[in-house]
């Protein structure tokens, strides 16, 4: 069906985000991953990771069309090697500092500096790689952030965080999120995030104290508020067409999700984690609503192809969840 641009301009669209993943399928993937990783003395790890991501993306659908992760184990293996080389280089310099200056303080200072300097590189690299390998209806996602700009801002924000004894940390997190999300593209569609440090700070301060006062019960409301703060401030735009995201998650929903996942994992000696992961993914998809008038049949390829998997593994090393 062809619609002219003027017709679709203000036409309200329906969006339905779904997750079809099954615990038993995912469990199978994990077991095969484990077997192959074992037989290759760990070398299969990047390929295993690609398989896992492919499954999760492939089972996530918007209006019945599935997302796709096209990254390969080979690419991620290269990224992994680069991270190792980086670590070796850092440790080598550390060793030189220690043996030449004979003072561990400078060496440790250098290690911290190297870690902090790597973080923005890792954030940038992983977003760039991951999004370039994500597509939907044959249209690629992309990340257009500038590494230099992010690094400079990041170091500035870290400095503020240190001199405010961590209070600025709330702004640091929200600033990074705003910068990175506002640079995500899907074809001509531009993403944006308008959360700010002040709101985030109060949300967490309130959450922290109320959780203590209620002996932990408030934690589920806190969790709901955090999720809602991420989702409700997320939007997409294409020209003057828009999509606004909204969270439907409730504290009760989080209670059920987290408690059942906990029991599933504990009472199965960890084997139930595959099912727990799938429940989490489904919960996320079921609780995000998108409202707006962007016609998803009318998106065109804009993002260039990109090849570099450095950040993918660097982030994995630091175990930072950017999702």
């Amino acid at each position, binding site marked *: 069906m062809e619609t002219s641009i003027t017709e679709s301009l203000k036409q309200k669209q329906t969006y339905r985000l779904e997750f079809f993943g099954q615990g038993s399928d995912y469990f*199978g993937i994990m*077991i095969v991953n484990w077997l*192959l990783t074992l037989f290759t003395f760990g070398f299969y790890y990047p390929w295993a990771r690609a398989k896992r991501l492919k499954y999760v993306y*492939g089972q996530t659908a918007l209006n019945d069309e599935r997302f796709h992760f096209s990254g390969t184990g080979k690419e991620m293996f290269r990224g992994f090697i680069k991270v190792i080389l980086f670590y070796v280089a850092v440790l080598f310099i550390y060793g030189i500092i220690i043996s030449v200056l004979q003072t561990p303080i400078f060496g440790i200072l250098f290690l911290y500096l190297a870690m902090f300097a790597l973080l923005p590189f890792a954030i940038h690299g992983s977003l760039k790689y991951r999004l370039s390998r994500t597509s*939907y209806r044959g249209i690629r996602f992309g990340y257009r952030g500038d590494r230099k700009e992010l690094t400079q801002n990041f170091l500035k924000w870290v400095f503020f965080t240190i001199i405010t004894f961590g209070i600025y940390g709330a702004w640091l997190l929200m600033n990074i999120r705003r910068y990175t999300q506002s640079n995500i593209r899907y074809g001509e569609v531009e993403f944006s995030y308008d959360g700010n440090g002040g709101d985030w700070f109060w949300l967490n301060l309130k959450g922290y104290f109320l959780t203590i006062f209620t002996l932990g019960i408030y934690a589920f409301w806190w969790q709901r508020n955090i999720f809602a703060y991420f989702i409700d401030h997320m939007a997409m735009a294409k020209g003057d067409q828009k999509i606004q995201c909204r969270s439907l998650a409730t504290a009760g929903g989080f209670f059920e999700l987290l408690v059942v996942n906990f029991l599933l994992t504990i009472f199965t000696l960890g084997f139930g984690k595959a099912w727990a992961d799938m429940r989490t993914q489904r919960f996320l998809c079921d609780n995000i609503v998108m409202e707006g008038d962007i016609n998803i049949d009318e*998106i065109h390829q804009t993002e260039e192809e990109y090849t570099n998997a450095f950040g993918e593994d660097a982030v994995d090393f630091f175990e930072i969840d950017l999702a």
Partner: protein
Amino acid sequence: MLNSFEAKYFDGKSSLPQQIKVAFQNDILGLQLQISRDEKINWSLTDLRFERFGNLVEIRNQNYADAILKVENAAFAEEFYSAMKRERRVDIHTRLMGLGLLKISGIALGLLGLIVGAYFYILPPIAEKSAALLPESFDDKIGNVFIENYLEKVEVDTARSMQLEEFASQLKLKNRKSLRFTVVKSEEINAFALPNGHIVVFSGILDNMESADELAALLGHEVTHVNARHSTKMLCRNLAGYMLVSLLFSDVNGVMAVLAENAQQLHSLSYSRNFEQEADEQGLRILVDNHVDPRGMIQLFERLEKDNGVSIPKIISTHPLTEDRKAHMEEMIGTMDYQVVSNPKLVSIFKELTN
């Protein structure tokens, strides 16, 4: 078109789906996509990658950047999958998944069983043998590192340490490296030997002893740990065990952590039952060779057992059951031919040491 299937096609330029027809082309070993009445494209199987979700197959072509061909049809899915398999375009992961969850789980479980078996029965002897490859200087090094740190944290009784050295010098301990003895002021009823030949005895255990035979038995036991390199063997064993576990869970950092942790806790490194038994047996031989009453070993066990109520001594909790050890010693003494010669010098040093 013969044998053609309805398909959805995204051309990688726009997000608009196109309804097309697709058919197998046997002469080119591929698929023919009928995009429109006049536009046909051929996709060779060797260029394709696919994902299968039940009856739905999503196919991508490396020469067509992000284009997707989606076919939802059971017959097509089967035919396409076997064609790809013939062309060896199906990776090992997908082929294993094809076995079904039950079979995969069975394989994994069997393998896990094998590994667990290896962990308990094959790994320990190999690891202990491999300890022989490490030079004695390794034992000295880790022992030295530990004792330097350790002695800073505790209170050493210098006078008693010297008396203990003298006591030990009266005995032939069959030691291959020079031994050092230190008495540490502590209520704890314990003693331990480090791989570098440094033996630490707590004042708590000395205060509770009643005869020189007992002390000789204790030293005989601890010296055997040094002579037989038990610490190094345990270290190798723990490390090998951890390496296997980390292989299972693909965790590399853990190996270093284990090495660090074991070096930290060298004094409470729990030996295996075999090692304790070896220390008891060799300790007993040392007593007999020195013409000391071998029943000193049994007295030592009884002492440790009796004091159990006061504080749980590590020497018991980590060692094999005292009753079993006692019975084993009784049995050995029964078969032994020994001669006890009173040693007044040993007794007098012991008296000074424990007054």
